């Protein structure tokens, strides 16, 4: 993968670390990046997009925590094997975290009580 495949929009209301993490998640989920693929170094991404390296590190760190990336000696960051990714339910749940946050935010803005949203979700789940 090359650094310029990431799209960075500094003026967006979404912080840059989230933008980058989210794009990598999607690339991995869609199979465009597969296990063992190298991820560009923090320096590369920061230099290419003229963004702060700490921001890039933060995105990588988060994906590492989610089990999507792992650090390989001498190789930098690579996409983690699928097996490692699927291990713990906690980790899998964590992948839904941004969606859940967004859902709860929107539900709150609409003035919906949590119970009604959960009920709806359960109903959807059971019809799948």
């Amino acid at each position, binding site marked *: 993968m090359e650094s310029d495949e990431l799209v*960075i929009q*500094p*003026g*967006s*209301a*979404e*912080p*840059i*670390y989230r933008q980058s993490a989210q794009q990598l998640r999607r690339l991995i989920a869609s199979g465009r990046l597969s296990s063992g693929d190298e991820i560009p170094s*923090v*320096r590369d991404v*920061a*230099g290419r*997009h*003229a*963004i*702060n*390296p*700490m*921001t890039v590190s*933060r995105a990588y760190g988060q994906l590492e925590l989610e089990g999507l990336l792992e650090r390989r000696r001498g190789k930098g960051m690579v996409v983690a094997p699928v097996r490692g990714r699927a291990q713990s339910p906690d980790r899998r749940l964590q992948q839904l975290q941004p969606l859940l*946050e967004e859902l709860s*935010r929107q539900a*709150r*803005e*609409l*003035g919906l009580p949590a119970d009604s949203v959960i009920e709806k979700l359960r109903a959807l789940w059971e019809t799948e």
Partner: protein
Amino acid sequence: MMNAVSPSNIPDSHDYPVICRNLRKRYGGGFGGIKVLDDVSFSIPKGAVLGLIGRNGAGKTTLMRILVGLLMPESGSAMVLDEPAAYLTDAAKTRLGYVPQEPQSLSWMTVEAMLRFVSSFYPKWDHDYMWNTLMRWEIPPSRRLAKLSPGQRQRVALIRVLASCPELLILDEPASALDPVARRDFLREIAVRAGEAGTTVLFSTHIVSDLERVASHVCFLHEGKLLLDTPMDDLKETHARMCLSREAAAAVSGRLPGELARRRRPDGGMSIVLTRKGLEAWPSAVTAGGGTLEALNLEDLFIEVTDHPGAAWFRK
């Protein structure tokens, strides 16, 4: 907020190349004087890139001139690289790079002569960087500084401080006269140096998009007061604008928790800028009916908290 400095919590000066406490400065003196800095306290952790945003006349230049020892504050203290800013030793000065808004010094010299002369004062001078950047930024080395355009002169001044490989960079509106290519180049240089060499950077700007890329921390300076001092990534997640319909606005009494600014809208509604700690829930007024919550980018936020007469009542 990680940078807030209270007397009981004085950061270790080794980890903070800049520590300011209660800086005050007035021009004109006496009671009639204009407050340029009003009780400004902040510190910059090593390796951070702090973007200082403020409108013209907000006090940015004054603050920077105090930090490099060109101005004395009326009261308060400024420590830079572990020394009082007003009395920096020569050793500390070689570790500090400052670019004023309109660099003028040594203007009778040619670009090359000036850079060679200046390089002799800096043990870590990077000649490769100097020549490469002169070429990339299209500066004729044999031209006299006085004959350069203001933009070219600013570029030379940036090359001069960056080639000296300082530990602390203080840049007053550094990108204002750069074209988009040179600007991106310059931002990239700052980003990479902060990450790799641990260079600490303070730069002022009103070009907010530059700051969104490269800054790790943001301060708003408005009418001499520091309105906001936050890590960049958190800023967008901890601030939002709540828009209320006329009915919902009527139900709001008094200040909301976390309120930074509010504005009446022409339709009788109201928009209120809110801040929260971490990712805790927004105040329930949002859900009270007729309220929506909008994310803000940096420019929106800056305008919201500074573009109305009551802005200065808000103090962090």
